C-alpha cells in the first residue's frame, strides 16, 4: 500500500513542492484549508504539510488528527517565516505526557 504526501498552503509557499512531485493544494483561506484537510484525511494521504499561517487559524483541526495514526499533519513555516507554532506543539505534547513543563 502506498500513500501520498500533500502540501497545503498558500500558492507561494507550496509551489516548490509541486516540482518534487508532492500533491500540492494551494488554498487562500483557512476555511478552504479546513475543507481540503478533511477531504485529504479520507483519501490515502499519510502526511500533510501545512503552513503555520493557516494552522494558526485552525487548532481544532490539528487536535482532531493529533491522535490518529494517519494523516500526520506537520507544520512548516510559510513564506512569511516561522511563527513558532510547530515548536509550541512539541512543547504541548511534552506537557501532555509529563503533566508539567520540563526541558
Amino acid at each position, binding site marked *: *500500500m*502506498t*500513500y*501520498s*504526501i500533500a502540501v497545503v498552503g498558500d500558492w*507561494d*509557499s507550496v*509551489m*516548490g*513542492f*509541486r*516540482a*518534487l*512531485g*508532492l500533491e500540492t493544494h494551494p488554498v487562500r483561506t483557512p476555511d478552504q484549508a479546513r475543507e481540503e484537510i478533511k477531504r485529504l484525511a479520507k483519501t490515502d494521504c*499519510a*502526511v500533510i*504539510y501545512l503552513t503555520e499561517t493557516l494552522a494558526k487559524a485552525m487548532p481544532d483541526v490539528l487536535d482532531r488528527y*493529533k*491522535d490518529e*495514526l*494517519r494523516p*500526520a499533519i*506537520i507544520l*512548516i*513555516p*510559510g*513564506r512569511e*517565516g*516561522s511563527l513558532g507554532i*510547530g*515548536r509550541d506543539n*512539541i512543547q504541548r*505534547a*511534552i506537557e*501532555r*505526557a*509529563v*503533566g508539567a513543563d520540563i*526541558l
Partner: protein
Amino acid sequence: MPNVAVNPTRMELTRLKGKLRTAQRGHKLLKDKRDELMKQFLETVREVRSLRAEVEEDLMKVHGSFTVASALMSAQALEQALMYPKQSVELTMTFQNVMSVNVPVYDFQTRTKSESDIYPYGFAGTSGELDAAVEALGHVFRKMLKLAQIEKSAQLMAEEIEKTRRRVNALEYVKIPEMQESIKYITMKLEENERANTIRLMKVKDMVLKDAVEERRRKNEEMLANS
C-alpha cells in the same frame, strides 16, 4: 468503612485478595511501561526539536531562493514551469512497535531515479535560481519526511503516556487503597464475629456449668436428708 458495600464473608475476602494482587502487579507493570515510554519519548522529542529547527531554517532559505527565482521570472512563467511535475513521490508506511505504541515509519520512492532528473521544465525558459531552489527543496524534503515521522511518533507516544499515567494513578491512589480498605474491613468484621462466637460459647458453658453444679448440690442435699 469502605464506601462500597462489601459482604464481610470469607469468600469475598479471598476474592478481594486475589484482585488486590492482580492490581498491584498491573500497577507495577504499568509503571515500568510509563517510565520506559517516557524515556523513549524524551529522546524522540529532543530529536524532533533539533530537526525542526534545522528544517525551519533550511526551508526559509529555500523560500528565499524561490523568491529570488520568482523575481527573475514572470509569475506565469514560473507557474507554467512548475505546473506538471515530472517527479512523483510515493510513500510507504510501515509500523514500528514502541512499547505497544504503533508509530509510523515512512519510506518514500521517487519515480525518476536520478537526482538531476527532477526538473519538470526545460532549462531555456527558466532562470538558474529556480533550479537551485528546486534542488535545495529536494534536500530539505528528506529531512521533512524524517521530521514528519518522529513528530507523529512523539504525538502518539504523548497520548499513550497520558493514558498510562492516568491508569497508574488510578490504580495507585484509588483502586488499591479502596481494596485494602475493604480487606481490612472484612478481616475486622470476621474477627469481631469470631470473638462474639467465643464469648457466646463461654456464656453457654457458664450456664451449663451452673446448672450442673446446682444439680449436684441438690442431689447431695437429698442424700443428706435421706440418711
